[in-house]
């Protein structure tokens, strides 16, 4: 379903950080166009 898609990742410092989500998605055939971790506290 997400094969070949462009992906924007917004991680949360109190949840899952952006780089961790990147690691999970990396084996899939998709393009990560932006990844960052945000802080709301």
């Amino acid at each position, binding site marked *: 379903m997400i094969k070949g898609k462009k992906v924007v990742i917004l991680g949360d410092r109190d*949840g899952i*950080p952006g780089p961790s989500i990147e690691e999970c998605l990396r084996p899939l055939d998709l393009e990560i166009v932006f990844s*960052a971790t945000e802080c709301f506290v």
Partner: protein
Amino acid sequence: MNFPVLKAAAYALVHAPNILLTHGTTQLLEGAKNEQSQYLKELPSALRSFDQAAAYPPNQAYIGAIKPKDLEQIAQPWYEQKLESASRFGPYGEIMPEDEFYALMKIVDVFDLIKLEKGFRAEIQAKLEKHPLFDQDDLALLGPGADLEDLQKMLKADASPMKIGSDLIGAVAPAHDLDQALSASIMFENLAAKASAVLVLRHLFRENGIDPLDVDYIIECSEEAAGDMNQRGGGNFAKAIGEMCGLKNATGSDLRSFCSGPVHALVSAAALVQAGVFKNVVVVAGGATAKLGMNGREHLKKGMPILEDLLGAFAVLISSNDGINPQIRTDTVGRHTIGSGSSPQAVLTAVVTDPLERAGLSIRDVDLFAPELQNPEITVPAGAGNVAEANFKMIAALGVKRGDLERSELADFASRHGMPGYAPTQGHIPSGVPFLGAGRDLILEGEIKNFMIIGKGSLFLARLTNLFDGISFLVEKNPGLKASAGTAPKDEVRRIIAEAMQDLAAILDQ
């Protein structure tokens, strides 16, 4: 080894609903995107009065009027549970109203960038005359006051407004006509950080009977950047704050590491004292105007009052060991290293279990943990979860993994070794340091034997690294002074010198 001690702690909040509207970045960005924003239209009606903010139980816990654990007995939502006993002043400091704070910003403004409207200036002088921290020398710094027309002219020349409701009561001029690092909005932000730090530092001395002249060094650890276009962030808040509090014998510097900055500063202060470089080191930070109303959109959507309407500030004195005050175990400092990894598990392993393991301690040996203590009533509706509770759950899980705890102990770990979060979301303010005052008192009262302060910071927000940050230390009951290895007691030194003088006199007589 005689460890340094946690000699005193002070805390202050500033109720700042109008600064939230004019300087909170959430509101500024919303206004820049959409001048007709529905959020900005509805926001003023959800702001709290000073009395509501002062009676809010977490704020009373912050200034020491109640213990953090007392919050467990108060039904939530806390914003519907005003404390009848609430007072503006608490054992650790105060909650200052916004009008008095504007005047304090003017008092600490040594470059005369701020003008206060004449009528407001007269009114506020009468109020400040009753305040225990301000004398006639301070009040003289309020200046002559300006006409409203002059303030409006300042705004046309890029000044930043100071408002109470719809009334313009003052303005902050830019400190340079082109330098963006000295723009009016940056100067407002920095003067607010300086003023709130001055407020809490004066409380530290007054509430604890400490002579400011005894302080040798100041470490300032807010998240603001003082400087000009050629050295943005060059500093030095520390000496600027100390100058306004009579610390004539002190020097100082600024230390930064996002939310974990204060714990880095405390470890540095403890090291300076233990090494004998300085006897008394102050760690201090004022509040962040940018973060006011940061999650306001979510609070408004959920029909809540806007709870992020307070600037936070704290000050701590670290001194050489007096045999009485709780000591800082500089031999069990936990640190998140560059190689530690950024997952929540990796961070807490680095800052909690690794240092305990080095010290031969179990998680069970620590009476209370003080990690990020953000008020959950602010963070849960905003989608960030209960940050304090998440920390306790992870620490408990690591305890089970290490065999320190039974799996059955997971459920009530937070109530036995933790506390509810109660600090405003002011970045550097909630990360461990709010508990220094209450923790010190609990140890001195014999209620607990130790506690761990944990600071964590989001370094990735500066877009220079994806790294996280964390640092921790243990504070414990003082067992009393010990003679340090390799040093002789004073009487012994006197005896040796006296004998040497007698020998010399005998030689000279011959």
